[in-house]
């Protein structure tokens, strides 16, 4: 509301105190999130009909084993322990910084996640940056002239891609580039039959191209559609109308008003998109047999590797939470309506 005072009332603020409250609130939120996400993941694995012994050892092998051997295996996979105790034991260790041992990889979970994450991270980073940048530009171009041919083409393309499953797109790309044209490898992150020391950066890039592109293409569609929507809203706003009435050219309007107004929601979207990229990577890595975090999650889930699955779940939740947190903080830093402490215009 309009204030009648001759000067805007800028409330005295205690920034130090506010920051403490903010940090405290976020920390509590994060702990609660991690707790509930890991609990949910654990409950789901516990109630799943998968028998870890059957899944990992096999019916035939189990049949030829003695009772003692089977009992040993049951202890290893934790079948004989009550679920509540198992979860509490895991949570207690996790709290002390020990993520446990992966049952399938027979290595500390932290180490497995470290290796897989390194593989996935740059795949996701490429997709994240590419889809953000390309989606932003396409969205602006489409929204700038709503209803134009360019808008229709961009919108049609985005809708089509957004409704295409990522794994299907991955298969199509595989068929074209790996099977027909044979220009790119069909899967994995390194060439087969080459020593670890002999793998070059070029090899790694070559193997990451297809999965990264698949992830980007799906991400672009989403960001484009959201940005376009925001653009249409901005172009119909009173302030753009007034800018036009003041003789500003389209270029000037974009430079002065459109970019700064579309950037804020785009930023939130970009950081929120981390979760989508994470989710998408599971399917894409599976399709390309790319040994990343997504594929490890699938393996851990199907193989009842509870410590690994919970570890991945927590790491993913932290990533998504971190993304949203960064978006929130940036919003406060960039948006003057929040930064300058007005209760809203």
């Amino acid at each position, binding site marked *: 509301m*309009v204030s009648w005072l001759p000067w805007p009332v800028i409330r005295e603020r205690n920034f130090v105190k506010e920051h403490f409250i903010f940090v405290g609130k976020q920390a509590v939120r994060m702990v609660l999130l991690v707790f509930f996400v890991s609990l949910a993941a654990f409950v789901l694995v516990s109630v799943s009909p998968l028998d870890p012994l059957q899944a990992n050892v096999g019916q035939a092998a189990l049949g030829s084993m003695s009772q003692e051997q089977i009992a040993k295996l049951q202890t290893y996979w934790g079948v004989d322990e009550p679920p509540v105790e198992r979860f509490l034991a895991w949570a207690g260790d996790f709290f002390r910084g020990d993520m446990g041992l992966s049952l399938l990889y027979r290595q500390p979970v932290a180490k497995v996640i470290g290796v897989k994450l390194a593989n996935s991270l740059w795949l996701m980073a490429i997709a994240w940056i590419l889809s953000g940048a390309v989606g932003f530009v396409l969205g602006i171009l489409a929204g700038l002239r709503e209803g134009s041919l360019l808008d229709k083409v961009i919108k049609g393309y985005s809708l089509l891609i957004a409704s295409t499953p990522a794994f299907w797109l991955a298969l199509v790309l595989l068929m074209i580039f790996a099977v027909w044209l044979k220009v790119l490898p069909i899967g994995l992150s390194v060439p087969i039959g080459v020593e670890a020391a002999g793998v070059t950066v070029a090899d790694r890039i070559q193997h990451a191209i297809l999965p990264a592109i698949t992830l980007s293409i799906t991400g672009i569609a989403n960001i484009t559609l959201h940005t376009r929507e925001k653009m249409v809203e901005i172009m119909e706003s009173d302030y753009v109308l007034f800018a036009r009435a003041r003789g500003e050219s389209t270029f000037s309007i974009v430079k002065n008003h459109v970019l700064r107004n579309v950037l804020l929601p785009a930023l939130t979207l970009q950081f929120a998109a981390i979760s989508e990229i994470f989710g998408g990577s599971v399917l894409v890595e599976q399709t390309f047999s790319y040994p990343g975090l997504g594929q490890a999650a699938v393996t851990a889930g199907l193989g009842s590797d509870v410590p690994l699955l919970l570890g991945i779940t927590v790491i993913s939740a932290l990533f998504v939470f971190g993304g949203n947190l960064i978006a929130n903080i940036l919003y406060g830093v960039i948006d003057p309506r929040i930064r300058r402490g007005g209760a809203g215009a």
Partner: protein
Amino acid sequence: MEEKKVILDIRNFSVSFEQYEKGFRKTGLPVIRNLDVTIREGEMVAVVGSSGSGKSLLAHGILGILPYNATMGGELVYDGELLTKERQKALRGNEIVLVPQSVAFLDPLMKIGPQIRKGKKDQASREKLNGIFEGYHLKNEVQELYPFELSGGMNRRVLVSTAMMGNPRLVIADEPTPGLHMAMVRRVMSHFRELADQGAGVLLITHDLEQALEVADRVVVFYAGTTVEDADAKDFRSEETLRHPYSKALWRALPQNGFQFIRGTQPYVKDLPEGCPFGPRCEWYTEACKGEISCREVRGGRVRCVRAV
């Protein structure tokens, strides 16, 4: 009255919207028809009509910023020459300026100073703005504020300042004082009066007759998308000097004249009556009112009524 130079002549102006009705049938929705207004240098003309009657479209039509699904008809003559799209583009924001209703028409994320300068950073623009702000008793620190930080008193002056960045010869003020109390209205109006006294033509678009009468030289009464009367502001001193029955009704509705209202509401553009749009609410209504009503001179003003004398 000596003849001053006509700055804008609006002749038979119309705006209609394309609409899709029940599926794919395209229909034109005429929101403004037969609108005639003349604005001279140093003159303040008020177009008075009720809210939602499409008055703002007149402003947007003059500036050439109507939405894409709107079509404009009639003639706009600016400074003796037809106001074409190209001329509109070249003149708006410079010679023809708009003063909007509220700070909602300012970009919420751009500081006042750069926004009024349209992003220009050169010395000349800076000095010009500083001068304008001084004239309106606005502190230079206001340039560093965002629109949401302006107080009610400041934002009117800031909005008028946006107009002064050009070299305004025609100022269009679209409902510049919504929801303000009378003292503030007078102050805002005095800014526009000042502009007119400096030689610019001012077109004031408002729903508030009282306000218009305070400062305007002439009042154009707008009813159901049409101008029904074009009268000197002095004519509004008594009911008898007015010509159109709707203007008379407006006069009677003023607080000091008895607050009387007439029955009915303005017809929606889709169900306009034949002939005179005011017909169904008019006490003078006759058969003759069912035909096409043209504008004619009566006692020095113009009126769109067959029975006015």
